[in-house]
């Protein structure tokens, strides 16, 4: 039986991990809900953020610059991808969209592998992230607390964007009924570019934040991609609250199950996904339709 400090420690880790998942998954979910495109390159975009952090922190000691540049790189990549490739696929079948983003993901991973090699690149913790927080009854790393804080701020910003801005209004309406949005005079397609870019940016920033915590290798996005799919299935397609709640849930499951048997923690999230599919296929917050 795990002890209380162990339990709390893992529960806390679950929030840290879950919040990162929530950030990446919200990007994926909004892209899916608005554009109807399942971005198989999303994991690769996450990875690009981590590598940007590696490059930046090799030259400057500022994590803030890493975050800013990570966001910028992914904004450019997202913009280029949507304008240069994805937008030709909106009227093609879903399977084609999946295939092309899958191929794109491979290209990104291989390009990075060519430049940086396959070995893990070390990314140092920021100076304000080193150390621990000691609450007496339990101890956890400072950086993870900060991660939760940063992601909370970002998710809050995301929320504001979605619920308090004109673009957010168009996106939310467009997820529901794009034709009606057009009938009210707004060209929905123009918004697609913004949505895709923001989604890519969310993945990239998450990558920057995650970089000091784990091995930075070209394939690092792959497990995140799959876990994101699980989050989206659990939380519901196209739902921002679903992605957040789903992310935390998956993060907690991953962390807490390691208390009992680390070997089965991955299996546990797939078991939950299977359960959701049987009991409530549209997920916690999703609506039917859209596959």
């Amino acid at each position, binding site marked *: 039986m795990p002890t209380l400090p162990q339990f709390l420690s893992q529960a806390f880790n679950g929030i840290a991990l879950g919040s990162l998942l929530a950030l990446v998954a919200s990007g994926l979910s909004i892209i899916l809900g608005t554009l109807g495109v399942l971005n198989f390159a999303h994991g690769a975009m996450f990875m690009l953020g981590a590598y940007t952090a590696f490059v930046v922190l090799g030259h400057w000691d500022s994590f803030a610059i890493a975050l800013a540049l990570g966001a910028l790189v992914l904004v450019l990549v997202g913009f280029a991808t949507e304008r240069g490739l994805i937008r030709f696929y909106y009227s093609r079948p879903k399977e*084609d969209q*999946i295939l092309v983003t899958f*191929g794109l993901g491979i*290209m990104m991973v291989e390009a990075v592998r060519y430049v940086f090699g396959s070995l893990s690149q070390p990314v140092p913790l920021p100076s304000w992230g080193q150390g621990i927080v000691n609450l007496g009854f339990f101890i956890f790393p400072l950086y993870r607390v900060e991660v939760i804080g940063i992601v909370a701020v970002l998710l809050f910003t995301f929320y504001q964007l979605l619920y308090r801005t004109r673009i957010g209004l168009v996106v939310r309406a467009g997820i529901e009924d794009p034709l009606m949005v057009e009938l009210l005079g707004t060209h929905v397609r123009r918004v697609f570019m913004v949505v895709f870019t923001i989604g890519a940016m969310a993945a990239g920033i998450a990558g920057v934040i995650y970089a000091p915590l784990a091995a930075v290798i070209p394939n690092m996005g792959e497990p995140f991609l799959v876990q994101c799919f699980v989050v989206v299935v659990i939380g519901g*397609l196209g739902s921002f609250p679903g992605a957040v709640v789903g992310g935390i849930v998956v993060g907690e499951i991953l962390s807490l199950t390691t208390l009992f048997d680390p070997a089965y923690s991955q299996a546990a999230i797939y078991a939950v996904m299977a359960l959701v*599919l049987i009991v409530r296929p549209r997920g916690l917050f999703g609506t039917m339709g859209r596959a």
Partner: protein
Amino acid sequence: MDGSNGRRLKRWLPELSMAIALVILPFVFDTWLGSVDLFTRILIWGIFGLGFDLLFGRTGLLSFGQGAFYGTGGFVTAYLLTSGRMDNVWLALAAGVAAAALFSVFVGLLALRRVGIYFAMITLAFGELSFFLENSPLSRWTGGENGLPGVPAPSIQIGGLDYSFAGSWPSYQLIAGFYFIGFVFARFVVLSPVGSVLTAIQQNPQRTAALGHDVAAYKLTVFVLAAIFAGCGGALLGIFQSYMPPDAFGLDTSGQLVIQTVIGGAGTLIGPAVGAAIWLTLRDLLQQVPAIGDLWKFILGLVFVLLVTFMPNGVVGNIIRVWLRFGFRPAVATGTDRPGDVTAREALLAPLPTAIAPSLPPRLALDVRDISKAYGGIQAVDRVSLALPEGRLHAIIGPNGAGKSTFLRLLACEETPDSGEILLHGIDVAAADVTAAYQYGLAKSYQINQLFPQLTMRQNLRIGALGRHRGRLRLDIFRPADGFAKVEDVVAALLEELGLTECADLVVSTLPYGEKRRLELGLALASQPSVLLLDEPLAGLSAVEREGVKQLIRNLRKGRTIILVEHDMDAVFELAERITVLHEGRKLAEGTPNEISGDPLVKQAYLGGMTVP
């Protein structure tokens, strides 16, 4: 070239060519590369891909997790052999394939609940799940990161002959043998009624279900078939390499399968093998070019993206398109020529007796008792009853929002009423689904055409007729799709009846709307139903075409009960014996056309609503 020998040659030409290729090509590889091993690997991917092509190329189900079954087959076989639990390699292989099949039933039951994007995500997740399980919790049996070395090769002992398949050339013979058998089997599937149903599912799954086929069961069947091929491929990989690698389960494997299939051409059966040849050869070649070296996968990824964008049919797919454009048409079953004998046609197309004979022959063909249906808070249909003796042509009319479409959907078993009964020749079908309804002899023709656009007229009708004659599910893989004489006769009679014989073997998407509308009717007729529901059969037709369809409907009355929903009032009054008027979900009036046109309540409902503001 219609002689039966000519047709037999055309049927078996691909298998023949494959056999020849499998004999000649290895020597090409051996000479060019010094070893036949690359070709053996290509064929292993080919076996894996045969099943995947049936799943994705033919049925349209894009799975990113086939590695789960490839790995299961491979590791079960390898474990049984390397742990000493089994000596006979053939048995171990069979066990591996069986394990893969079993696993796929479990995954399929979950994943196939969804389609498209969700299906891709779920299969991906299960693929990763297996990879993870293999790597950690089960590593005691799978060797974890190290895999399982020491997998032996099988041997045959017949009479005095003792042949072991170990070594480069014998391995090739083993795998080429399996590939050939797999190819022949896959060809049987494709050319069978099962293959036709799978293609229909890809093009219009809802209509396929409404034509009497158990779509979920067929999907599960092809999913398991794909897993069997995958498991076989995995097991053979272990045998070939004498080593079972851990990455068999991974996304790399599943992804590579998808890429190779798309490059080679989905739906062509040999596409995956061709794609594997291209991928593996280019990989070896590109890696040797100094300027490229490690960028080979990036370049192949780029090639893949370009192919998906500009040449989505893949290499083989495009070759076939060019082939067809230059006039080499495959052998098409044109069906026997029928004399235009009306009575013979009518006999052929007469309604089939319902499968379950009720104890007392009921007076009514269709007895609808007080059915209701509500959505949210709105009562769309409110205790409506309808009693139709056999042979009646009955119309249902009513203003917008009256509940006609909902009522018809309830009758067609597309939805279940909240209360009430629908008795078809005495059997309550209210809770039945569309597939069962079709089997019982109740068929609907849709307001918006629901056809199989990439198939010919004849093939479309065949899907319908096969539904009734074969039942919900039949795995008659070794029968050709046009192998039921009765079905072919019915299809030919339908084509005559509908006036579509001339365009029988033309692809539907190329035909004008009038022909498509008549095909739509034909699909409902293909089950030789005793009750026919026609949802706005005249929609979108010109005046001349309307006359034709009206005459068709009159001809259809013999022995059949017809319910007609139409807005063309002239047509309704011409055709219907009796009319029911619905208003706000309730039956407002019912009677002969004269009675209805004189009814003041009906007039008011149409002109001003029941209450005037």
